[in-house]
C-alpha cells in the first residue's frame, strides 16, 4: 500500500516537473503509443523520450490550428494544384491532416490509410478525428492499398504520404517501384506530397529516386526539426508551375488554420535550379532499399 502510494507520488512528481501528463499509453503491434497532455497542447508520441517522435499535436481549445510545422508545410502543395476532389492520406497519425482538409474541402472525398489499428483508435478517442460518408479510414499497409486501388482503377487528385517517423522507415514506401505505382494512381493534374527527411545519407538517395520517377520537384524544408516536404505531380513540374494566381484566396482560407501561405511561398525550392545532391546517386528500388541503414549514416 505504502509502496503504491510512493510510486503514485513519484509519478505525480515526474509529471509535474515535465509539466506533461501521459493520459494514455499502449503497446501496439508496431510501436509504443503515448498520448500526452501539456497544458492546452495534446500530442501523440511513438516513443517516450525524444520530442522528435511527436506524430501529431493539437490545441484542445483551438483544434483548428495546425500546431505542427510539417502539417503546415504540407499545405504548400495547394499552391501548385487545383482544388483536390479526391484525397488519399497514407499514415493517419492523430488524424489532424484529415480533419483540416475536411474543413477546407467539405465536398471532397478523403481516404485515410493506417497500418496500425491502435493508432486509428487513439486518433478517434483522443484527437477528435472524425469520419463520415466522405471520410473513410482503411486499416491496411499503404503499398497494398495503392496496389489494390490501381486494380480497381481508382484515381486521386492529391496523395499525401505521411508514413515516416523518425524511428523506423517502411522501406517499401520509398522505392522507385512504389513511386511509379503512386504516380499511376494520380489523376491527370494530381499531386503527391511526401513528408520526409532532410538530413542523413538518405536525402540524396530519396531525392534522386523522386526525380527519376517524377522529374524536377518542389520542396520545402524545415531545418529545425529536419522535416522536408517533397511535392511532385503526375505531369511533372516546370519552372512556372508555381505561381501566385490563387495565393490571395488561399491566404484568407488558410489563415484560420494558423498557416501563412506567403512565407511558405518564399521558402519553396525547385530542384531544377536547386539540386543539392550528386548526379550519380544510386536510386532506391525494391531490390535496393536500405533506407533505415542509410538514415543512420
Amino acid at each position, binding site marked *: 500500500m505504502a509502496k503504491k502510494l510512493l510510486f503514485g507520488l513519484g509519478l505525480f512528481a515526474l509529471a509535474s516537473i515535465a509539466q506533461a501528463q501521459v493520459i494514455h499509453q499502449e503497446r501496439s503491434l508496431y510501436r509504443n503509443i503515448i498520448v500526452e497532455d501539456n497544458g492546452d497542447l495534446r500530442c501523440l508520441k511513438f516513443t517516450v523520450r525524444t520530442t522528435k517522435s511527436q506524430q501529431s499535436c493539437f490545441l484542445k481549445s483551438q483544434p483548428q490550428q495546425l500546431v505542427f510545422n510539417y502539417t503546415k508545410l504540407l499545405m504548400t502543395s495547394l499552391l501548385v494544384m487545383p482544388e483536390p476532389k479526391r484525397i488519399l492520406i497514407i499514415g493517419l497519425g492523430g488524424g489532424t491532416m484529415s480533419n483540416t482538409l475536411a474543413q477546407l474541402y467539405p465536398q471532397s472525398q478523403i481516404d485515410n490509410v493506417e497500418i496500425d489499428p491502435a493508432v486509428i483508435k487513439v486518433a478517434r478517442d483522443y484527437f477528435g478525428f472524425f469520419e463520415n460518408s466522405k471520410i473513410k479510414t482503411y486499416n491496411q499497409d499503404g503499398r497494398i492499398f495503392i496496389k489494390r486501388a490501381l486494380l480497381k482503377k481508382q484515381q486521386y487528385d492529391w496523395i499525401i504520404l505521411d508514413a515516416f517517423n523518425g524511428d523506423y522507415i517502411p522501406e517499401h514506401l520509398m522505392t522507385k517501384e512504389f513511386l511509379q505505382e503512386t504516380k499511376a494512381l494520380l489523376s491527370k493534374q494530381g499531386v503527391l506530397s511526401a513528408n520526409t527527411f532532410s538530413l542523413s545519407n538518405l536525402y540524396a538517395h530519396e531525392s534522386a529516386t523522386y526525380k527519376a520517377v517524377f522529374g524536377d520537384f518542389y520542396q520545402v524544408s524545415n531545418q529545425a526539426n529536419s522535416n522536408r516536404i517533397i511535392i511532385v505531380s503526375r505531369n511533372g513540374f516546370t519552372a512556372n508551375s508555381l505561381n501566385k494566381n490563387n495565393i490571395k484566396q488561399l491566404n484568407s482560407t488558410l489563415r484560420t488554420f494558423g498557416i501563412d501561405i506567403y512565407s511558405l511561398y518564399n521558402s519553396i525550392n525547385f530542384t531544377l535550379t536547386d539540386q543539392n545532391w550528386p548526379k550519380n546517386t544510386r536510386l532506391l528500388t525494391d531490390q*535496393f532499399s536500405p533506407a533505415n541503414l542509410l538514415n543512420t549514416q
Partner: protein
Amino acid sequence: MGIELLGGRILAPYFGSSVHIWGSIITVFMLSLSLGYLFGGKLSTHSASLATYGTIFFIAAIALLPIALSSQWLMEVIFINVEDTRYGSLLASMALFFIPTVILGMLSPYSVRLLVKSSNESGQVAGKLYFISTLGSALGTITTSFYLVLWFDINIIIFGFSATLANLGLLAILINKTSRAHKMEQTNG
C-alpha cells in the same frame, strides 16, 4: 537465415510489412526445415556418399534461383487472387521458399551420417554440426542485414548464395572422386 531475412524484403512490395509477413516466412521456413531434416535422415540410410551430399548442395543452389527469377510474376498472381494479405504472404512464401529450404534442411542429418564413424562419438559430432550450422546462421543473418543489403541488389545476394552452394557441392563431388581414385590406387597397389 540470409534467405529468410531477404524474404521480408521480397514480399513487402506485394504483401506489406505487417507482422503477419514475418509470421508467414518463419512458419514456412520452420515447416520446410523440419521436413528437410526428415527426408535428409531417410536419404542418408541409402548408401550415403559424398557425391550425393554434393548433389544436394547443387540442387539447393538451383532451387534458390526462382526466388530471384520468378518471384515477380508469382507474387503478382497471388496478389490478384488472394485478397487477405495473411494468406497471400503465406502462399507466396510457400511458393518461393518451401522447396529450397526443404533441400537445405536435408543437409544437416546427411552431414551427421557422413561424419559419424562410431555411435560413441555421434553425440559429439552432432553437437559440432549444430554449432557450425547455427553459428553460420547467425553470421548469415548479421552480414546480410547489416552489410549485404547496403551494397547489393537482393537478386545479386541470392545469386551469390546460390553460387556458393553450387561451389560447395562441386567441391564435395571432387573430393569424393579424388578420394575414390586414392582408394582404387591403394587396392590396386
